[in-house]
């Protein structure tokens, strides 16, 4: 039991555990203290100083986010000194900030703007405008992330995100004093450093300094062009978060409304990435079983174990930079987005009698790295760019607002066909552990002829917010074809957030762990916590979105990928069987080593 500390916040008694901060205490009694550099997911920096408060007896003002509570502390959050300091600090931040709010992508979604309107009087700026004196630069070379230094308030949330959550450290602090800035290795552009494009920094940037490359106008243009047939696919995790950007509570499942909105926006066909998630399970599950057979029975040294999932493009770029010696351990399967894209311009085009040249393929993703993925030169196996435009959940919300739709009052509609049908196994791709669970539901059944031995197919040990989840599944009473796996223990590990991914890979590298199958998602919580998701994202919101994902799964009539009728059909009509020649051509890919810096 933590020791209890008694203190006063603005005269109100509070009791807290030792080690908590004044900010925690204030929040406990609903006293609002503004913050900028503080973020629940990150370590405390205490550098913006807007949260300063007065503590009786202390020499100056103290940063409430960084000051631990102590017995008998008497805290005042709204004295003359506090107000004056806070207002001065906000003015200082504004004097260094390119405050052209109306043309800013984050207009009305900016924490600095909120504070400015709370504290700024109508008078002119208090201090000298420093922006013209600075040689601020914009790095807009990356297909995923745009970094505009003129909007940066140097809170270092992005730096801490990149270092603590992702262990990537593509962003760091350079120079000192008035030249201090957030930068990259040798100030190289973001596309040319170890950045994985995960976009977690965007998700934590309080201003418009880090934003996704926006393709909303391009998509509108495609929609308005008569000749073009615009198909859209929606990722599993968008349906549990889109509502947040449109006035709904976190954790609301809005699948039907989202489909309805997309149709009204004008997409010719609204389809589901969940379909290709099911397809991924067929391909990846078969690949795993094939590798196991090759490695365990045929003793083939080219069959690399453990096999790691390849759905998360942030993770792919991370391993390409950080553990290139393990590229052969990655599943060769493309991500569901790219499988969908390749099929949209082949199978779908054929079935609908369309010229793939005239198909524009758009995806709605919780992800910023997907933009980079779609741009990879390997992702053109249909003969065209498989996915033309990737929009984040946030960009879709923007389109819906621009279209003037009242999202909440929209009717619920169903996905179009073909490539619109999916199972519960596919929707859980959106949460950490989902690919693992879906793969096990199918692979176990292939090998044993029975359902996985978990109640209602819910493989709960792989679910949840633990960073690393190790689960061993014992395989018994196999069907004759797979009897070499009789009695085998399939060792799996599921990790989310690249810090955890690195930890897992180091365990593999040192030989400490002998996993067979690894699921890694680059973002904390999996795709539900993706860099393209509504802002804010924090632990509580990630939990709510995850709950919604599993609710969606349990409500589905079909919950195993191999039972998806459209999947059965596509193999019968088009692909043949998993890992067939055609599958390899369209659905599988390869990776390349990238430099470490």
């Amino acid at each position: 039991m933590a020791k209890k500390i008694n203190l006063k916040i603005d005269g109100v008694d509070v009791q807290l555990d030792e080690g908590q901060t004044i900010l925690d205490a204030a929040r406990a009694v609903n006293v609002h203290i503004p913050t900028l550099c503080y973020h629940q997911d990150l370590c405390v920096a205490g550098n913006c100083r807007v949260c300063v408060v007065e503590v009786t007896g202390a020499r100056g003002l103290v940063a409430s986010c960084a000051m631990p509570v102590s017995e008998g502390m008497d805290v005042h959050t709204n004295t003359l000194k506090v107000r004056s300091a806070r207002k001065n600090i906000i003015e200082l931040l504004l004097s260094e900030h390119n405050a052209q709010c109306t043309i800013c992508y984050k207009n009305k979604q900016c924490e600095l703007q909120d504070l400015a309107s709370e504290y700024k009087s109508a008078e002119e700026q208090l201090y000298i405008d420093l922006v013209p004196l600075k040689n601020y630069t914009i790095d807009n070379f990356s297909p995923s992330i745009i970094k505009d230094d003129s909007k940066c308030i140097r809170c270092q949330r992005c730096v801490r995100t990149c270092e603590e959550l992702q262990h990537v450290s593509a962003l760091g602090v350079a120079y000192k004093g008035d030249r201090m800035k957030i930068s990259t290795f040798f100030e190289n552009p973001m596309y040319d450093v170890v950045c994985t494009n995960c976009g977690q920094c965007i998700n934590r940037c309080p201003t418009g300094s880090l934003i996704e490359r926006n393709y909303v106008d391009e998509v509108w243009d495609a929609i308005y062009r008569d000749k073009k047939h615009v198909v859209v696919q929606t990722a599993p995790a968008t349906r549990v978060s889109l509502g947040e950007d449109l006035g709904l509570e976190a954790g609301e499942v809005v699948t039907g409304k989202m489909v309805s909105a997309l149709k009204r926006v004008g997409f010719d066909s609204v389809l589901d990435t969940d379909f290709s998630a099911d397809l991924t399970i067929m391909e990846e599950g078969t690949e795993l079983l094939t590798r196991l057979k090759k490695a365990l029975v045929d003793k083939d040294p080219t069959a690399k174990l453990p096999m790691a999932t390849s759905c998360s493009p942030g993770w792919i770029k991370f391993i390409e930079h950080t553990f290139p010696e393990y590229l052969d351990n990655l599943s060769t399967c493309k991500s569901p987005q790219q499988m969908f894209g390749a099929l949209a311009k082949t199978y779908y085009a054929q079935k609908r009698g369309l010229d793939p040249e005239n198909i524009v393929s758009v995806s709605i993703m919780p992800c910023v790295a997907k933009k980079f993925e779609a741009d990879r030169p390997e992702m053109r196996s249909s003969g065209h760019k498989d996915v033309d435009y990737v929009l984040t959940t946030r960009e879709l919300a923007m389109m819906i607002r621009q279209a003037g739709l009242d999202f909440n009052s929209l009717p619920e509609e169903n996905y179009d066909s073909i490539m619109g049908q999916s199972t519960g196994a596919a929707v859980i791709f959106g949460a950490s552990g989902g690919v693992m669970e879906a793969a096990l539901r199918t692979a176990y059944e292939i090998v044993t002829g029975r359902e996985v031995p978990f109640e209602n197919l819910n493989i709960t040990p792989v679910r949840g917010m633990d960073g690393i989840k190790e689960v061993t599944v014992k395989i018994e009473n196999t069907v004759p074809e797979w009897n070499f796996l009789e009695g085998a223990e399939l060792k799996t590990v599921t990790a989310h957030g690249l810090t955890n991914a690195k930890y897992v890979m180091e365990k593999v590298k040192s030989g400490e762990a002998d996993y067979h199958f690894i699921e890694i998602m680059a973002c904390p919580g999996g795709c539900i916590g993706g860099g393209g998701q509504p802002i804010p994202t924090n632990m509580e919101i990630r939990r709510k979105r995850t709950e919604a994902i599993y609710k969606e799964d349990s409500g589905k009539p079909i919950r195993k990928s191999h039972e998806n009728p459209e999947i059965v059909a596509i193999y019968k009509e088009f692909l043949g069987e998993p890992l067939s020649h055609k599958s390899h051509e369209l659905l599988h890919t390869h990776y390349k080593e990238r430099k470490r810096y």
Partner: protein
Amino acid sequence: MTYNKLKRIDLIFQEDSECPKVLEKTFGKSNDKIINDILESGLKGRGGAGFPTGLKWKFASEESADERFVICNADEGEPGTFKDREILFRVPNKVFSGMAVCAKVIGAKKGYIYLRGEYRFLLPQLQKALDVFHREIKDLLDFEIFIQMGSGAYICGEESALFESMEGKRGEPRNKPPYPTVAGFKDKPTVINNVETLVYAYMICKHGPMGFRELGTSDSRGSKVFSLSGDTPIPGIYELELGMSLNHFVEEFGDGDTKAVQVGGAAGFCVPRKMFNDTIIGFEGVPTGGSMKVFNSSRSMYNVLHNYLEFFEEESCGQCTPCRVGCQQLIKGIEAVKKGEQKASYLDQLMKLSETMKMASKCGLGQSVANSFSSIVENFREEMIY
């Protein structure tokens, strides 16, 4: 006002070949006795902040930890200070001995000297002296000292930024608490003392606390090494008793035309002639880490302030808002007033800003910019405007 005769003391630079013998004798005493001696002497930190040295040692010795460190802060970067360089040049073994006493008291096995980047030329001879010292104390104490080079950032003289730098990170001050005696270098209990403080600690062990205590005033015991520069016929390093009035100081060291003295470097206070008589050099008056800069009537105080602000604008680590942007605004602000682009009353706004910097900055750097700013603007306002 306490009247103190200006007394030159020449103790600190005396060569001392008895260090091992003194250490042996000191190590024969209990840790409590040593701490009490230091406390009794009234020694306060000589870096400028003036925290009682004995207390620091006591706090660190009371923490439970598997490892502790003693660090000598030789990142002497305050404009106008050059005394530590001289101490390290002339009597490094006294510095090492001070560290050894501290190590014994707090139970540290390792000590570090964080040497200012610009003092790299001292490294070979310092290392040589250190090797001798290690041989001398081999049988007395399990303690080793390492020299870690700084890289030229002023902010790394701030103790927590210094730890960050030593750990291989960017030199940025940490949030406090925790204080170094609880979690310092590598998050272990750490005593970090100025070069001069460590020498005095050693000398107190050698001569007993009373000799030290007899010098100075009740708030500022002992003597102190001053680095004198500016408009003086005799610039240099002087060991003087604390508690003297600035008037006496100027009489002794000034050129007869002294207009102001900047006590404590860029982070210190500017004292104008009219206040010389009432200003005591010491913790009860104007504290100083040693820098004494004398300005005569030929100097423009606008230029002096501008120079300091340029320094701070560049040397701020840049992490916290009040310091990073505040420094830029102060310098741009006085420039604008001088050029007539802002009204003279804008200086009042800047004074408020400097107050915010003092109240809300994360570390001592940002907090102390207001010292020179407000003391110069208040006393030489006319020079700021015309």
